[in-house]
């Protein structure tokens, strides 16, 4: 198993554009979470999806959206890009429990640069 895979690895976009980032979870994992990591900071939680439904959302504007597909892969979409959206976007997959946290396995991330 290759682990969590994300594409693309690097991306450069212009302010105002839209971007779609993709994530494939580890086989058997049904939960996918997205994090934003700005340089010098820890990852910040954006979304969690399980069984194609949003289960949790961090403090991000509506320009950020995501979805999960029947094969449990996921897309993160960001509209009307701002310079401040430049960051490393991490995807993590995990098993899912209604109580307690399960180990999150992270991908290598997508480095987004907005110019």
């Amino acid at each position, binding site marked *: 198993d290759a*682990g*969590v895979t994300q594409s693309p690895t690097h991306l450069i976009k212009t302010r105002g554009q839209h971007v779609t980032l993709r994530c494939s979870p580890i086989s058997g994992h049904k*939960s996918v*979470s997205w*994090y934003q990591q700005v340089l*010098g*900071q*820890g*990852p*910040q*939680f954006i979304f*969690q999806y*399980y069984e194609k439904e949003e*289960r*949790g*959302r*961090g403090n991000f504007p509506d320009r950020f959206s995501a979805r999960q597909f029947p094969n449990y892969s996921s897309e993160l979409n960001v509209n009307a890009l701002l310079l401040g959206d430049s960051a490393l976007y*991490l995807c993590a997959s*995990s098993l*899912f*429990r*209604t*109580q*307690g*946290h*399960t*180990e*999150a*396995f*992270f*991908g*290598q991330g997508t480095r987004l640069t907005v110019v």
Partner: protein
Amino acid sequence: AQRVTQPEKLLSVFKGAPVELKCNYSYSGSPELFWYVQYSRQRLQLLLRHISRESIKGFTADLNKGETSFHLKKPFAQEEDSAMYYCALSYSGGGADGLTFGKGTHLIIQP
């Protein structure tokens, strides 16, 4: 709102010396605390979690609810311990399972 504080951005110690990476948290509920590690050119990965109460790679961490701390310790540092360390808190509410991370501590072990 939950918060995780790692006061040291950089910690440099000599090989064989004890290591302590500090982590304090604020959370109104019953927290689950974790340490994640990122070695150079590798993915972020789980090092240990407080509920398992185990030692991983010689590291231990005890949850102190009175002091709201979850410091990571190792009695004798090794060069391969050099990495970025993140303390994280899980807030499992309403089925959500997100992690709140601290800003991280860059640990450098000098030979």
